Structures are given as C-alpha cells and as structure tokens.
C-alpha cells in the first residue's frame, strides 16, 4: 500500500470511516491510493463495505470521518454532479423514457455541449461498444447485454477520467459475462481510464483487475495484484475467500528462517512459511492450495515432515482429479491432481502420506 507515493495518487482514501446509524462502522479506517489508469477491483462478501466505498467516491454517501481526494483535491464536499465521475450501475439505470441516443446525449446536454458535437460524441461512443445501429431504440427493446453496453457507453461518453462500476455484470449469463469482462478491460486500457470496479465474483476480480482490494468487515484485508493475492494471501480470510483452500488449525512449535514448524491439532508436524505468526506457542491456521499438495514423497525433501491421510472419495472431473481425504481428524481436505498419464488414481480407503514444499503452505493468523 505504501509503495505508491501520495503525490502520484489519482484516487485517495485517507482514514475514511462510514457509519449509517451512529452505532456501527460499515467502513473502518479505509486507506487506499490508486494511480491513474489503474483497474482496481473491490472484492468482498456482501456487507463488507465495498459498495459503500464506491458510493462515497461517487458522492452519494458522505464519509463520516476522513478524506477522499481525487487528483489531489478533496472531494468530500463536492456534490456528485460536479465530480465528473462516470458510473455504471448494477441494473444499468438507463432512462426508460429516452432513446439510447438520448440517454447518451444526456450527460453532454447537461454539460451544455453543442448539438453537432454532441451527436458526434454519441456516435463515437456507440461505435465504441459496437452498438452504432441502436441509437433510436428504447432501453426496453434491448437485451441485457446490449443494455450493459449502452450503460457503459453512457458512462464513458463525457470522457471521465474515473469510471466506477457497481457489479455491472451481475445480471448477465455466464458466457456473456465472460465476454463483457474481456471487453471492459480492453476498453479501459485502450482509453487509459481509471476504473474502480465492485464485485463479489472472485473470478471476475482476478481476470479483470490490475489490483484487487479484498474487503471484509469494513476493512481492506489485502490489496494486491491478482497473482499475489492467490499465491500469497496475507491472512486466513483472504486465503479462504480467494480460490479453493485447505486449512488446518495448529500451534507453532518453532520459527526458523521465516519458516515455522506447526503442530497440527489432530496430530502431526508440518513445515510452513511463517506469514503472520510471531513466536512459538502462537495459534495458527495453515493454508495450502489443493493443487500444491504432494502425495508422491519422492518429490519432497528427505527431511520434510508429512501428515497421515486416508482417502475418502475420488472424483473424476476430466482435466483434474479431486480427492477428498481425512487429515488430522478433518474430513474436508481436498487435493487436486492433473489428469496425466503417470498419475495414480487413489482408491477410497487407502492410507497415504501427504506433504508439500514449505513455501507453498502459509501459517496465517488463527481466526
């Protein structure tokens, strides 16, 4: 977070807090810096405060405490219509009594842009989303995907530098959603606009964003690039929220060179990377991705610790095998193996040893 210097930041949240009822904080001490041109996604479960942050940035909610700056200028007291921020709404919010072209011309009209100029810009925006022929239609005559494109074009037509999107693809079917994800990212990069994107769909967040801010309980749990988020979650919430994950509770035995030896609750010792554990005796949750678990002991170091496991279920999924194991008294330990010729298919009831490279497993905070 501190990597980006304050003076470079285009959007800044500084110690922002928000409360609706004066009793509970929906957003707790939010700090965030965004450089120009970045595509940032706010990801989190519902009620985590991500939409509230977006609304504060757009100006529809006021921060209870703290300062929000846009391009260096505080915007707390600027009404939404003067902020010049484009916004795409969850249900598109296309004005039903206007045609598509009128919808697009609306932001230009209120900015008192001349008629010919206006028409030109509307046309260009429509072409940009490949909807050039639809100017005369009413929103109700368009499909969901088409409405989505128009909403996007409308948010872009007045050339804002910052565009906010509030779960814009939530109402689309899977295929269309994937297609639109691709189009939105392309458009954002082509136009060089800064985008704040809110979603609760982690795939969407990972595939589209430059950086992802994972929200929970009114705080940013981790702000990082998608790969970093997946590979090196900072805490157990992020680890569990992003992707599939096996967690085991345990106690730290010793810490050496950034690696921790953890005694798993159900019995057994294992090596992990110490992420946020400090001293022996700390409670921890260790986190390991299903695809990083090894059953072939030959691939591990000779002195590596292993755990005993019993195969409960073997699921054939085509490209991968998914095997459910009982490990340290827990029945929900999953391993994923690629469907390759040399791979053995584990039979339910077999006892196996499992282990992993210490740097693949992270000893995180105990929740």
């Amino acid at each position, binding site marked *: 977070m501190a990597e980006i210097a304050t003076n470079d930041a285009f959007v800044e949240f500084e110690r922002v807090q928000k409360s609706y009822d004066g009793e509970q904080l929906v957003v707790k001490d939010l700090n965030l810096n965004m450089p120009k041109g970045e595509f940032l996604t706010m990801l989190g479960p519902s009620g985590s405060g991500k939409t509230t942050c977006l609304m504060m940035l*757009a*100006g*529809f909610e006021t921060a209870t405490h703290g300062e929000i700056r846009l391009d260096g200028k505080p915007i707390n007291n600027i*009404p*939404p*219509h*003067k*902020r*010049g*921020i*484009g*916004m795409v*709404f*969850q*249900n598109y*919010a296309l*004005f*039903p*009594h206007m045609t598509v072209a009128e919808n697009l011309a*609306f*932001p230009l009209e*209120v*900015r008192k842009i001349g008629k010919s100029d206006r028409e030109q810009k509307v046309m260009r925006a429509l072409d940009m989303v490949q909807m050039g022929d639809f100017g005369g239609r009413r929103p109700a005559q368009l499909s969901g995907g088409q409405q989505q494109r128009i909403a996007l074009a*409308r*948010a872009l037509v*007045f050339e804002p530098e910052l565009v*906010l999107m509030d779960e814009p693809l939530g109402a689309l079917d899977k295929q269309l959603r994937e297609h639109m994800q691709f189009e939105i990212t392309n458009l954002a990069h082509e136009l060089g606009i800064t985008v704040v994107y809110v979603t609760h769909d982690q795939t969407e967040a990972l595939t589209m964003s430059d950086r992802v801010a994972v929200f929970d309980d009114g705080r940013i749990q981790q702000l990082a690039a998608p790969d970093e988020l997946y590979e090196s979650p900072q805490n157990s919430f992020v680890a569990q929220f992003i992707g599939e994950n096996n967690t085991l509770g345990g106690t730290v035995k010793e810490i050496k060179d950034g690696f921790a030896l953890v005694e798993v609750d159900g019995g057994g010792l294992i090596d992990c990377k110490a992420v946020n554990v400090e001293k022996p005796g700390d409670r921890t949750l260790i986190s390991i991705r299903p695809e990083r678990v090894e059953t072939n002991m030959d691939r591990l170091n000779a002195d590596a610790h292993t755990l005993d496991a019993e195969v409960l279920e073997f699921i054939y999924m085509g490209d991968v095998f998914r095997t459910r194991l009982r490990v340290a008294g827990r029945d929900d330990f999953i391993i994923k193996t690629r469907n390759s010729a040399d791979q053995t298919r584990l039979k339910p009831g077999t006892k196996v040893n499992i282990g992993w490279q210490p740097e693949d497993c992270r000893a995180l905070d105990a929740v």
Partner: protein
Amino acid sequence: MSNVTDATTGAGEPMPGDNGTRTAKTENGPVMAADGRPLKQTLRRTLRREKMRALLLIAPLLIFVVVTFIVPILSMLFRSVENDIVQNTMPETVQALRAWDEQGTEPPGDEVFVPLYFDLFKASEAKEHTKLGSRLNYEQPGLSSMFRGTGRDLDDMGEEFQDVFEEIDPAFETAAFWHELLSGAGGEALLKERRDLYEALTGEEMRGDVGFTPSTEMAEMLPWTTKAYTDFAIWTAIEEEDVVAEEEPWEAVYAALGQDLRSPDTVAAIEAYSGPWSTTLKAAAENRDQLPQDSFREMFVASDKDWGSLEAWRTISLYSPPVTAGYFLNSVDLTKTVDGIAARPETQQIYLTLFQRTLIMSLIITGSCILLGYPVAWLLANLPLRTANVLMILVLLPFWTSLLVRTSAWKVLLQQQGIINEILVWLGFVDDANRLILMNNATGTVIAMTHILLPFMILPLYSVMKTVPPSYLRAAKSLGATNWTAFWRVYFPQSVPGIGAGSILVFILSIGYYITPEIVGGTSGVFISNRIAYHISSSLNWGLAAALGSILLIVVLALYWCYDRIVGIDNVKLGG
C-alpha cells in the same frame, strides 16, 4: 398414429389405408380434428366452454353493474328527453291543438276547450292534472296555478248543466237513466280505447269488468256524453270499485250532454229517436235554451284569465309532443319559442355559468392537488419504510372519517370568526376589520375539496413513484445533472403516469362533487351537481336534472377523450 387412422376411417373416409390421399385432402380442405370434424369447429367448441365458465364467474358483477349502473344511466338519458305527460294527460286536447296555428295571434277556441274540459275533468278525478301543471310550469311560470285552480272549478262548470237538466226532468238525477240510456252493444272498441287512455294517464293497469258497454247508436247520437259516461264508468268500476249502474254520473257527463245538445244534428237525431228514455231526452232537447249558453272557453277564462292568453297556449302547444329537446335547451340557457330556439332572459341564465365554474374549479382543485400531493407522494416513496407507514396513515386518515364531518370541520376553520382568521389576526397579517372571507364562496370550495380529494392524487402518485428506482436519480447526477435537472429530466417524466391517473381521478370526482360545495360553497362556490340535486329533490324537475346530468356525462367523456389524445390513456398507471 393408429388412433388417428381409426378415427378418420370412422368418419367415412373412403380409402382407409391410403395415407397419401388423406394427407392431400387435408392440405386442400380445412384441417380436421381427430374425430373428423373441422379443427376450427372443435377449437371453438372447446373455447366456448371456457368462455361460458368465465362468463359465469363474472355474471354476478355483470348483473350488478347492469342493474345499478347501466340501466339508471340509460333511464336518465331517456328521461332527459321524455315528455309524454302532456299527451297522456290531455290526449284529445293535444290532438285538437294540432289544427291550431301557434304562429297566429288568436288563442284557440272551443274546438280545443271542449276536449280540454273533458280531459282535465278525467285527469283531476285521477289527480294527475297538477303534475301536468308542474311540468308546464318549468317552461312558463304561472301555468301550475292555472291548472290547479281550474281543476277545482271543473265540478262547478258541470253542475251548472246538471242543475238545469234535473229541473227539466228528475230522471236525470237517477243512475238508472244514464246507464240504461247509454248501455248497448257494439261499443267494445270505444271502451277499450278509453281504457287505454286511462292507462296512459295513470300509468296503471285498468283491467277488470266495467259492467257497462256503450251502445254504438248512442255513441253516434251523443258522442261527448257517451265518451264522458264511459270514462266515468271505467273509473267508478275499476278505481273506486263501485257498481256503475247504481252511481250518479260525474258533472262532466251533464256538461257533455249540454255540449251535445249544442249541435243541431244531435237535436234532430233526438227528435227521431224512439228508444228507451226518449221522452226525457226529448224534453231536454226542447228545453236546451235553459242550459248555460257560455262557451267552454268563456267558462275557462272566467276560472283563470290566463286560459285566454296566447303565450300559455303556445307553451302548451310547444311542449305537447312526446319527445322534447326542451330540457337540454334549458340546460344550456336556451328556450324553445314559436319562432325557434332563443336565449333565455338574462336573469334566468345560470346553467352555462355553472358548467363553466364547475370545470374551472375542478381544474384548479386538480392543480392544487398535484402541487400539494407530489411532494408528499415523493416523501412516501423515498422515506424509510417505518416513517413512510406513519405518513401513509396520516394520508389515509381522512378516509376513516365521514365526509360530512371533514367538511363541517372546514366550516369551523374557515369562517370569519374561525380558527384561521383568528390566527391571522393574532399574528397581525390581517386587520381585524377586514377578516378574510374564506367560506361560502369559491375559495371555500377549493380549499375543502382539495383537502378531501388529496388522497386520490397521492395514492396513484405514490404507487408509481415507488416503482421508479432511486438509481435513476443517482445515474443522472453521476452523469453531471444538477438535482433539479435530474428531477425534471429523469424523475418527473417517469412519474407522469401517476400524475395522469391522479388527475383523472380527482378531476372526475370533483366535477360531480356535491356535498362539500353545498356546505362551504355558498352561492358563488356551488357546482352544477348542486343544481342537479336541487332539481331532483326540491323542484322535482327530473327531466331537467337528467338533461344536466347527461350533459355532465358528455362533458366528462369528451374531456376523457381529449386526455387520451393528448396524454394517452396507456400513460396512466395506478401502480406497478
């Protein structure tokens, strides 16, 4: 597949096995159902059952609507042009009047007054003549007292004849004389004709045995007498349930004989007559000089001089047809004269002013309901649910109190010594000597009716606003619109259907409003409906009330049509 083949074969297909032929036939002719009947017919039969079931479901409502709504409206429309009372009450007078020249300068003579006497005598026995008087009084004030007053003199006019006849021969006093003289054969047609006239007059059935059949011979010799006695007989037998042969006849029968004896033909016929009671008749004919010699016209004018006025007869003549446009003309301050349609005297012109006032004030009320109701509806739609519910109760509260109570409460508030004036005086906005006149004028009506009709504006507005997502306003603002622009360009157009629905409701309700203007409207704040109510319950001029109501109905329909043209009726939403 085999089923289809079987069914088709059963229906008489000549080549059961030949699929090709059958297909070809179906393609050319109508498509057949499995039982060989045309598919269309089968479909219609299936649908008919469903339609019948649906019809049965709505039947109670349909009957209710027809009985309580459509029939009264049709009867109102009919009543506004109906005018058969003149013809029913004095059928022979009306017939005789046709020969009279209403453009002329002379009132009619005895050719009209003689039938008038007998028509009126009969009507006064049936107590129908005052109704006719009231009806004609609507068109010319004074006619009512003319009919009522003369109705009382009719017996006296006949008695003058009766006294003379009884002096000539005491037999005239006996019921038997009249019954035996006039009874005979062949008069069934006459009896039926007189019976029908009675039925038209009273509106009741006059069935039953009269115990008298007029003789054709007498009907020819003594036409007036026979008719008058037949009328008497029918009335006595059926209405009074007495035996005709035992009752002394009406004075009108003596007057009729007197009238008959004025004709030389009748006198000649009596001299040649040799049937029963010929001596008595002959004695009467010989002494006819002793009978009153005044014409019936003179007798009527003596009773009320207006019978001799040209104007009265013109009015009677103008309103004698069974259908009249008179009520409608009256409703728009016009009147029928012998020279055509003319404006009423200025002092009698009220209805056009009233219609105009009703329309303008309804528009003002609708406008103020929009102005006051829109913000409330907006609040209702945008406040948190709990607060909105409390507010909604406040909006609905007036519905739970009586309309009369609410209007009376306004009376308390608005009067010159009322709460509003007191507060204004106390605050010093109004001088004590110049207190505002807020009641018994148009202002009072507008204030009270706006309050009473406000919920009808708020509720449709609210239900439409509820469906406008708040994200539209946010979107507009994020696109750079100020609060006002966002409201005016984005929110308002979407709430227009609610305004439309509310306006139609309020306008149509207020155009027919009656109680509130009556209580707080004074004279300058009353509506056309108050006048309609007056004619229904006080002046009893139902025809005029019906005509005014019909015009109101037409105006509302016309306005509705205009509204549909300008705003579009599909632009009206009561919700969702």
